[in-house]
């Protein structure tokens, strides 16, 4: 149901009562005779005749059309109107249950409305005004319905369950914090519906409460809107936050990579995104740990977004509401590669736009890099010669060859080796935390479900885009025999044989493993170049999972996890705003999440090697760069028209009504005295020439 312009009456009965009393009184006064001044005249003969000609001489005079009466009635109407305290409402008034849903995603931090306040701040102000409307106090005000407050970005959060306390609701609105996450409303709608549902104890059936209305403050750029639907009985009021022509430039992605030959050299890659209708030029500034290190030699040109005015909110790339044939929205991208930078230490690399726009959250992107450190590899069990040769050829800090027994004792220290290359027989039944390349099907990993063997297999399909298979050609691979497995759904199969997986990736908590279902010597793979590449890829990928030379990029809504030594109990986390908080370490890892704000997160803990430090960079959620507010929402198959929400648009109307009443008062005063001004009274004895009275002397 679309929102519509409406007037909310704060105290409707008050104005109605005043009008009901005063209007009849005024009309009665017109019926009553007036107190008159007395004077003598020569004869009342002609006067009575004249009065009879004009009106009936009854105890109550007939109500005659009178400008004064109409003016006074209009004046009273305006006064009554003002007493009702009307307000211009941009949403639908509701006396039932209302759910106030406020978008706190990154795009709501844009300051395009007034240049100072963010969209979220204005939305909070409007929401509190709305609460005032719903809970307007007054002598004759109606009883408000219950209201709850939900904020959402990547996830939803109930700020205040259903209550009739406007103070609690407004405090809940004030508690809503800006996030740098994306917009996903599904959880918020589920929560709202769950709370708004009334369970009938007799029938045990759940029915949505009648009149529940959802009031949404958002810019309409909600990723999962198309997957939602408005249910019967629900009303959705969409309060548009932001300008429809809001343009923004931001850093969409950032990556850093250390050189394979010179680990102290880092190269940084940045993708700049333009959501505006015009191409822009901007400089980029690179800083490491806050120290400026590089600036682009010339401004970077970022092309304009195509069809930037596609207005319907919904999926991040949405078509127009009516499904017109116009091209879908596509932002302009420009990829920038910075010259290699010498950074042998760990640090946080930040890239900023040297350009101001209305949304600053995405003008800066960071990535944390650790100090270059080569891998520590353990080779466990009787591994075949081919694999052994490949592993020993990998440039690593150390490669240790361990027996199954040695590994069972030393492997418990999960941080001693980065990657373990093993045969399945050499691994214990309970795998210690770590990352494994297993050449065969191990028994210690759940979800593989071996059920027999297969022979004479070839590759049917492979996921070439997977990092493990980068530059790996499996066309000529033939396998004499393999273990048949029926992997669980969370086990990723990257190479498939005719009917069984051949290479899978399994993650079980702190354990990550790349598993081949066959032994290499049971195939012709060791004699192919692809095998060398695969083993090197696997070792490098496993080593990079959480402690590689180059970090992954994180976004709000995700969870950060750090591996620590087994004996560590506690770690300290420094948040982007500088505050610190202690975190408990469990099973050799510390986790924190979900992330809310972008910036640098730093974990510190102490183990037997001294103080350890680990940094993460969290960047604004993808897709939030498009800040042009949608003027309507496409919820499933329905359209919800947005109501404008330029700052302070919920305004009182009673001052205008009072001003109109004053104008009418002046008009009434003028109309009353106009009778006296028709013919100004002249002197008692007007001096007239004889000619002027000649017409009166006649026969």
């Amino acid at each position, binding site marked *: 149901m679309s929102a519509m312009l409406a007037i909310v009456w704060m105290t409707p009965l008050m104005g109605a009562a005043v009008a009901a009393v005063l209007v009849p009184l005024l009309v009665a006064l017109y019926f009553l005779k007036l107190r008159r*001044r007395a*004077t003598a005249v*020569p004869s*009342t003969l002609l006067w009575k005749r004249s009065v009879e000609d004009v009106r009936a001489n009854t105890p109550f005079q007939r109500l005659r059309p009178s400008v004064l009466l109409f003016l006074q009635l209009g004046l009273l109407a305006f006064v009554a109107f003002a007493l009702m305290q009307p307000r211009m409402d941009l949403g639908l008034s509701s006396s039932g249950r209302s759910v106030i849903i406020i978008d706190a995603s990154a795009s709501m931090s844009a300051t395009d409305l007034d240049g100072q306040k963010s969209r979220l701040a204005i939305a909070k102000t409007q929401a509190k005004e709305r609460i005032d409307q719903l809970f307007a106090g007054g002598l004759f005000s109606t009883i408000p319905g219950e209201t709850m407050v939900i904020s959402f970005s990547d996830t939803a959060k109930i700020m205040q369950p259903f209550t009739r306390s406007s103070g609690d609701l407004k405090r809940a609105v004030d508690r809503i914090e800006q996030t740098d996450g994306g917009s996903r409303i599904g959880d918020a709608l589920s929560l709202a519906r769950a709370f708004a549902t009334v369970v009938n104890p007799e029938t045990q059936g759940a029915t949505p409460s009648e009149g529940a209305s959802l009031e949404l403050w958002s810019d309409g750029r909600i990723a999962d809107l198309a997957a939602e639907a408005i249910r019967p009985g629900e009303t959705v009021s969409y309060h548009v936050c932001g300008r429809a022509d809001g343009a923004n430039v931001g850093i969409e992605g950032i990556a850093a990579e250390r050189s394979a030959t010179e680990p102290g050299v880092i190269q940084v890659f940045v993708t700049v995104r333009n959501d505006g209708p015009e191409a822009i030029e901007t400089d980029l500034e690179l800083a490491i740990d806050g120290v400026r290190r590089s600036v682009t030699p010339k401004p970077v040109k970022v092309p304009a977004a195509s069809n930037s005015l596609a207005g319907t909110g919904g999926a991040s790339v949405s078509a127009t509401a009516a499904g017109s044939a116009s091209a879908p929205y596509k932002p302009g991208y420009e990829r920038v590669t910075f010259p290699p930078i010498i950074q042998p230490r760990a640090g946080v690399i930040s890239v900023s736009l040297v350009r101001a726009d209305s949304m600053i959250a995405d003008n800066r992107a960071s990535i944390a890099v650790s100090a270059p450190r080569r891998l520590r590899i353990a080779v466990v069990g009787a591994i075949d010669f081919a694999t052994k040769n490949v592993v020993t050829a990998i440039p690593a800090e150390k490669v240790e060859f361990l027996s199954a027994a040695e590994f069972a004792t030393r492997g418990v220290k999960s941080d001693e080796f980065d990657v373990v290359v093993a045969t399945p027989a050499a691994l214990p039944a309970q795998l210690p935390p770590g990352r494994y390349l297993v050449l065969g099907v191990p028994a210690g990993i759940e979800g593989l479900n071996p059920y027999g063997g297969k022979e004479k297999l070839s590759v049917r399909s492979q996921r070439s885009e997977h990092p493990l298979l980068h530059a790996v050609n499996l066309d000529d691979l033939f396998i004499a025999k393999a273990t048949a497995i029926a992997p669980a759904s969370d086990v990723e199969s990257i190479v498939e044989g005719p009917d069984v997986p051949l290479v899978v990736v399994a993650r079980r908590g702190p354990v990550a493993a790349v598993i081949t279902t066959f032994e290499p010597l049971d195939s012709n793979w060791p004699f192919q170049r692809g095998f060398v590449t695969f083993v090197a890829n696997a070792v490098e990928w496993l080593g990079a999972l959480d402690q590689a030379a180059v970090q992954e990029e994180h976004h709000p809504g995700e969870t950060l996890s750090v591996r620590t030594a087994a004996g560590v109990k506690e770690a300290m986390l420094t948040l982007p705003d500088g505050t610190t908080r202690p975190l408990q370490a469990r099973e050799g890892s510390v986790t924190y999440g979900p992330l809310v704000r972008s910036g640098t997160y730093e974990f510190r803990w102490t183990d037997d090697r001294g103080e350890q430090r680990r940094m993460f960079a969290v960047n604004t959620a993808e897709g939030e760069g498009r800040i042009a507010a949608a003027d309507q929402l496409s919820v499933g198959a329905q359209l919800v028209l947005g109501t404008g929400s330029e700052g302070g648009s919920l305004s009182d109307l009673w001052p205008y009504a009072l001003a109109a009443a004053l104008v009418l008062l002046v008009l009434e005063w003028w109309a009353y005295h106009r009778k006296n001004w028709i013919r100004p*009274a002249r002197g008692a004895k007007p001096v007239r020439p004889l000619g002027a009275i000649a017409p009166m002397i006649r026969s």
Partner: protein
Amino acid sequence: MSLFFQGQPNRKRLERVDDLIDAALMARIGQLDVVSRKIFTGKIQGERRSKRRGQSVEFADFRPYVHGDDLRFIDWNIFGRLDRLFLKIFLEEEDLSLVIAIDTSASMDWGDPNKMVFAQRLAMALGYIGLVNHNRVTIAAFGGEGGMQKISNLRGRRKTSEMGKWILNLKSGGTGSFEESMKALALARQGRGVMVVVSDFLIKEGYEKGLRYVAGRGYDLWCMQTLAPQEIDPGAHGLVGDWRLTDAEDRDEAEVTASPGLVEQYRANLGAWCAGLRDFAIRRSIIHMVVDTSTEIDALLLEYLRQRGLVR
């Protein structure tokens, strides 16, 4: 503040005969004479030249003798020359009876200039003209408390002071019947002449019966309808707003809201009332005039009444 708000008329008091008529006015109107459009017979030979042939010394015409004519008026010289009898006809000079009836009812004591004062001054001026021309002047006052009063058969300039004092002593007030007064005047008629009725003619029981008594009974009748400016156009003289109007004669009350529409309606009704009186007068050879009391008396006599033929 306008007159209407005062409730009482602003009457200028008349204390002396000079207040009625001053020497300058007497000098200007001394040359005037009252004219009657009708042939009448005077009781004595006066200065007036009657339209009736009679026994005066002024020859008028001859006519053939018929049986029964007075032999004393046969022109014997013509009989000697023509041997036929002709009778000499002479213009008869008669005196004129001038009756001035003043309405002294309460309604006349109103307005600025006061209608009663205006009527007194008009009666004095007309009466002076009559006295100067040796007419029999009768001044009557009707409508007052004591019924009709009159001073009769004044003649000659010497009676000017007596007439003036009588007029000065007239008191307004009362609700005397117009019809009865006119009837009494008609019955007391002595000979023929000119009768001038000065009144506002705002008579609730109607003026028709009263005028019928005096019309057509040998009087050349003039109705001088005297109205104050405040009556003629009350809206221009401050009658605005809500009023309770009290009739000066019968204390009847009328509550009015003097809106422009009502004032216009009053003016229309007043015009209709005056037009009704005029139509009634025309049908009975009565001369009707509406006179605004702000009109100067000398201008009224020297210009308007002379034009209309009452004086010359």
